């Protein structure tokens, strides 16, 4: 009998990309973030880090990684993976999104049922909203005015004013 695997696939997207970020988690919980040249796979940097969801600013200068097994989000320099700042989040932060204007990031905490909003430069907490049951995905409107949160437990999408 062929075992049925638990499956979870994730897609992220960027335009005119040149750098590929890969977070890895092995069975002994050793985790890394590896940065590759997207054109040829050459390794640019690698650092130990407990990373869950990833997001990158439009200019590539900063990327963000949630610690899905913890209660935090971290900011790193793009490509070189130098830690810039960390901030507390709700429980089990599984997704992070960057506002199109790069000013704020939004972290969905599936365990805590909330979304925390942080200044993208400092990671200082700007606000927090109760999103629903198991928020697992976020999309920020192109004009930065609202953000949408998908709650996986009840298949609903909540809309929030971002201003």
């Amino acid at each position, binding site marked *: 009998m*062929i*075992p*049925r*695997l638990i*499956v*979870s*696939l*994730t*897609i*992220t*997207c*960027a*335009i*005119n*990309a*040149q*750098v*590929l*970020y*890969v*977070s*890895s*988690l*092995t*069975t002994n919980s050793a985790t*890394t973030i*590896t940065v*590759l040249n*997207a054109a*040829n*796979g050459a390794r640019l940097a690698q650092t130990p880090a407990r*990373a*869950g*969801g*990833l997001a*990158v*600013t*439009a*200019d*590539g*200068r900063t*990327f963000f990684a949630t610690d899905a097994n913890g209660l935090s989000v971290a900011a790193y*320099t*793009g*490509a070189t993976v130098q830690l810039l700042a960390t901030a507390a989040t709700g429980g089990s932060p599984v997704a992070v999104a960057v506002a199109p204007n790069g000013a704020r990031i939004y972290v969905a905490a599936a365990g805590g049922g909330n979304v925390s909003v942080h200044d993208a430069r400092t990671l200082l907490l700007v606000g927090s909203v109760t999103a629903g049951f198991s928020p*697992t*995905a*976020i*999309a920020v*409107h*192109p*004009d930065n005015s*609202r953000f*949408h949160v*998908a*709650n*996986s437990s009840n*298949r609903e*999408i909540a*809309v929030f004013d971002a201003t």
Partner: protein
Amino acid sequence: MALAFLNDRTLLALDSGAEAVVRIDTREDTIEGSFLVGPEPVAMALATNGRVLVSNSSDSKLRVFNGATGQALNTINLPVCRWGRCSVMSLATDGDTVYAADSNQQEVFAASISSGEIKSTYPVPAGPRWLAVAPAPPAN
């Protein structure tokens, strides 16, 4: 579920339970329509020209759709999956390229979205779970 803005009005939501992508009018907060995306979809992303990629775990494929019409454009067979199914996988898109990794492997595959061909294979540490692609930051 997964979310992505197709444009400044339409939000796409992947409803894995319904095996469909739902188009939401964010000005009216109403559902415009939906289209089926294949068995057990688990992730979604946008590529250039309004193309939407959906990953299907049960048959180990990536399916490409026109996000506005739902028309199926292409199917990409992933070599990263074993036993006919994918394990934990991550994808990222960059123009016409999709990057795919399987947590059971130590590689990232780069494939053409339009042709479905695997273009390159990159070695990575074991257990790749998340991918992201971005412009290289300007040198200081």
